């Protein structure tokens, strides 16, 4: 039985030529595994399988590679016919339904990309959005490219090496280097590394691919899940800014696979970040990213898909929506933001925080913009669901207990609504004693330090066999008496302090005051503010020791906004 080639190159392992189609690859694979059956050759089988999976993934796009030079020339021809001015590629966008009326260049492209129907439609959407600064990239192939076309790979390699060293800012060189590797039959990863490198050098390879390279020859990079994943690990949070993601998205879009954009990216993110993020969250963020770059219409199918995916998991559904809303927040699209929060139909603890956070972050950062949107929404009857959600959230918070620690907000519903007197008290900062026992305990705790101090000699005595040593030694006895004395001396002061307000009420009053101030800040009259407080949140009790500051302020901002919205809602709601 012939040995399996000791190589990691998938082509060598399977014994197929680069550019082989799916069926050939599969046949080669099966012929091999019939010899190296998984039952008897597990290690060999795994290597064959890995090679097969690598090639199978790339087979879908390999089809374009053999025609690379051909299509390249074609593209040159098409550009020549159009003139070199890249602006010709800029389609006018006046038609509302089909925003881009196809011009000649587009026809050419469509012919090449006849396989991808979706792509055409989709490209129209994103092409209408941003354009890399045209003219920056030369449309002429570099002088080295002729070497590649003549299959003089060795010379070309040397040439590109020095060319890249001399002109690291030329995007085209990276692409040609990629194409060279592809033609040489290098593995996909090796070839694509050049594109990644271009990105790392801060070149807009996406724009280059889109503007200069005809669609049929755009590398179908995204077909591989783990493409660029390693780089992503270094930048897990560089959402939006991440050029890798951008390239990935771009290449998916080139292939016209909208669903894959969502699915593969979500999955890839999930995989590559070792579950640093949620699958759906990934999708949501991608959708937002796509939307940010290519316009909301482009993101819509992804969003729809993600929603459908998440529909089986109510918890996730809300989270996804909330996260999506959160993601939209990063882009100036308030409509989207609120739409996503508005459709959220399940109240999920984390999400409500997120929601509050998102809403308030926006209100503070861009008060005018978001406030207006919110008010506009409140005026449109069909948008009232958002307000309802906000209300539901509040009501839910009354009941919900966060399993990760303490109550978030606790509207102590068992307590009578406080009288105005109590309100005034709270707002005036003159809290009254609540319970004698509490006060006593607080007092002892406060002055207790000295009592404990006094205990130390006694304890030392207990450790050394003689229990009453401490009392018999005059100097120790002196210290003891002093300590007890101080404790007793401090007690009245402590009593006075805690007699006025125990810790909890202290916190309540500060929080309420803060809230009151906020209400006044947003334009409430003092009487209105008090009424609102009495009505809704005086019984609001914060456990200050458990509630992180940031959440407290989030909650307050949330309530403040609620007030604002409610006061502006038309009465007939």
């Amino acid at each position, binding site marked *: 039985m012939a040995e399996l080639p000791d190589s990691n190159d998938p082509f060598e392992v399977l014994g197929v030529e680069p550019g082989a189609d799916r069926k050939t690859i599969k046949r080669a694979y099966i012929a091999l595994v*019939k010899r190296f059956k*998984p039952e008897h050759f*597990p290690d060999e089988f*795994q290597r064959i399988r890995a090679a097969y*999976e690598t090639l199978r993934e790339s087979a879908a796009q390999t089809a374009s590679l053999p025609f690379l030079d051909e299509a390249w020339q074609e593209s040159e021809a098409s550009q020549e016919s159009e003139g070199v001015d890249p602006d010709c590629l800029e389609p006018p966008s006046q038609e509302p339904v089909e925003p881009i009326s196809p011009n000649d260049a587009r026809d050419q492209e469509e012919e090449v990309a006849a396989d991808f129907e979706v792509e055409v439609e989709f490209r129209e959407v994103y092409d209408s959005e941003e354009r890399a600064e045209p003219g920056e990239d030369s449309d002429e192939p570099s002088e080295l490219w002729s070497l590649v076309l003549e299959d003089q790979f060795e010379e070309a390699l040397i040439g590109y090496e020095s060319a890249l060293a001399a002109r690291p800012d030329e995007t085209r060189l990276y692409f040609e280097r990629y194409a060279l590797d592809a033609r040489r039959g290098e593995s996909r990863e090796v070839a694509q590394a050049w594109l990644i490198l271009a990105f790392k050098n801060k070149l807009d390879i996406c724009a280059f691919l889109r503007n200069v390279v005809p669609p049929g020859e755009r590398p179908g990079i995204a077909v591989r899940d783990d493409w660029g994943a390693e780089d992503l690990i270094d930048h897990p949070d560089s959402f939006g800014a991440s050029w890798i993601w951008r390239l990935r998205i771009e290449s998916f879009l080139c292939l016209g696979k909208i669903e894959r954009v969502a699915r593969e990216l979500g999955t890839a993110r999930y995989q590559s970040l*070792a579950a640093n993020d*949620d699958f759906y969250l990934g999708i949501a963020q991608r959708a937002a990213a796509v939307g940010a770059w290519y316009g909301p219409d482009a993101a819509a199918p992804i969003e729809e898909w993600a929603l459908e995916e998440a529909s089986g998991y109510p918890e996730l559904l809300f989270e996804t929506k909330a996260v999506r809303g959160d993601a939209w927040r990063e882009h100036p699209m308030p409509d989207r933001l609120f739409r996503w929060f508005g459709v959220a139909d399940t109240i999920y603890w984390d999400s409500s925080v997120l929601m509050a956070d998102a809403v308030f972050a926006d209100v503070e950062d861009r008060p005018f913009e978001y406030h207006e949107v919110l008010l506009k929404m409140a005026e449109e009857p069909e948008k009232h669901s958002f307000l309802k959600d906000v209300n539901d959230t509040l009501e839910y918070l009354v009941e919900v207990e966060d399993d990760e620690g303490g109550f978030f907000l606790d509207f102590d519903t068992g307590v009578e609504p406080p009288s105005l007197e109590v309100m005034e008290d709270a707002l005036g900062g003159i809290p009254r004693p609540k319970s004698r026992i509490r006060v006593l305990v607080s007092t002892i705790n406060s002055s207790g330090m000295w009592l404990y101090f006094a205990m130390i000699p006694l304890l030392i005595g207990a450790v050394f066999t003689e229990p009453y040593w401490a009392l018999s030694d005059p100097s120790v006895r002196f210290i003891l008496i002093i300590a007890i004395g101080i404790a007793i001396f401090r007690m009245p002061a402590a009593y006075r302090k805690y007699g006025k307000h125990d810790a909890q009420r202290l916190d309540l009053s500060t929080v309420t005051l803060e809230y009151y101030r906020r209400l006044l800040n947003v334009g409430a009259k003092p009487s209105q503010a008090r009424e609102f407080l009495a009505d809704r949140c005086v019984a609001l009790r914060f456990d200050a020791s458990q509630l992180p500051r940031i959440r407290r302020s989030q909650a307050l901002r949330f309530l403040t906004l609620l007030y604002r919205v409610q006061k502006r809602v038309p009465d007939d709601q």
Partner: protein
Amino acid sequence: METDSNSNPATFILGIDLGTTNSAVAVFREGEVAVMSNALGESLTPSVVARDPEDGRVIVGQTAKEISLSHPDCAASVFKRDMASEREYALAGAFFTPIELSAFVLKSLKSDALRVLGQEVCKAVITVPAYFAEEQRQATKRAGELAGLEVVRILNEPTAAAMAYGLHRRDRDGSFLVFDLGGGTFDVSIMELFEGSLEVLSTAGESRLGGEDFTRRLISYGMKQAGVDPSSEWSDPVAFARLYRRAELAKRALSEHDTATLEVPPFGGDGLATTIVLDREVCRPLWQELLDRIAKPCRTAVRGADLEIEDLDEVVLVGGATRMPVIRELVAKLFDVHLRVEVDPDLAITEGAALQAALYANDQAVSDVVVTDVLSHSLGVDVSYEIAGKLINGNFSPVIHRNTTIPTSRTETYYTIFDQQTEINFGIYEGEARKVKNCRKVGLLKVKGVPKNAAGKEGVEVRFTYDLGGMLEVEAKVLSSGKIINKVFERSLKPLSDKERSKAMARLKQLKVDPSEKALNRDLLARADGLLEEVGPEARDQLEYYIRGFEEALETRTPRPIKETRRQLREVCDRIDEGNRW
């Protein structure tokens, strides 16, 4: 002893379908699958274990099934569902784990093979539902070991069925879906047949959904209609056992007829039996929830294979429950394709297991067959990550994703989260959820001796290796030192110590491997005894007469009268059974 010069005794490997309701065993010999029939001459052995309260010996199969009707407290069935769980079954006062009970069944199958082949076979391929969890697979393996079988492979049932199916049509390539609704489990697998190779693309399912659930729904409906308190199941097990059997028969009758009757026996002794008429209109709402649960894994599997429903060429139905018309309707509705039921739904899995065994034995007849299977659940570790300065614990990070072709070996690298951290505990989990609390724990790997460094500076490469035998190995390598720190991986299912093993083996010795005739006699008497409780006075007299005659013949120990009276008694029993069944 070698009776056949062609077959080397070492090459025989049993293919065993250890089913929820029925089990079967087959071997591959002389180029084809030979199903081993049991002492009663039947190829299916009910997966029922009973214990004789008098001599404490254990009986498996049809006889045990009969006992389960007359003495439910002495028998156990459907224990496959509780594989790897803590549950223990009481059999006439002695407690057995599902593993032990399965071992009894396996041992009995093994002795059947011994009887048919004339030689002892100590290796086996055992099938499990594809959706079985890691722990359940280990438990099945353990059961095989206890029964004295070296389990060379834990094979997924739908894969086995597809092998049996694929063998008949090697020439036609395409994708098909195996819909395996057995007694207690439900699996969907998508396969691709391409030039003699069978590749499982994806698999999904539910480990506690099967024909038994449909029966259960009928039972609870019957009890509700008859006004019986559901808790009576435990207070009057005999009546419940009878109701169970009747419900099962009614379910089967519904496959052929439009209506069936279900007679609910009086619970707690006195009273009259209530007869309930079942038809499809009554059953549909009862079963709707189960039918809904079936649809979901189907979609998951299709999606997992990266196919569309239209891409499927055929749907292969496997498992006894697929005989039910409601299931067929559902499948036809879900997949608008040709339904393929050529394979015997009961024996397909056994045949496939035997084929797989032949692959292990390097049989020439299957030299050009290649079958690859996939992992049905993702395997990974728990990780923490940081969000806004706060550590979020308990997140699941898959290392091997589901639907990965096995055997496979994958690595992931994880980093320390605290400064000066020297120890990392990897909880090994299985599942698809985001949080490990929603996954199943498989084990724990402790990595000690990580060099002290700032958080995130020290990485540990975790390697998961999953082989065809269903063994998961986990290995951790500290990146900076390049040292493989710890290979010990504590499974949740603890390996048996030698002492425990010998104790367990001793318990299994209680199995009574009856010579065929004795088993037959016993089975018949148990059956007749069971019937006595169900029949009316006239039939009872008649039945008792034949039982006595048979017992007298047994006393004489002369073969001819025994044979004669046995035939008579069997005829009477059959007649009564048929009369009982509408």
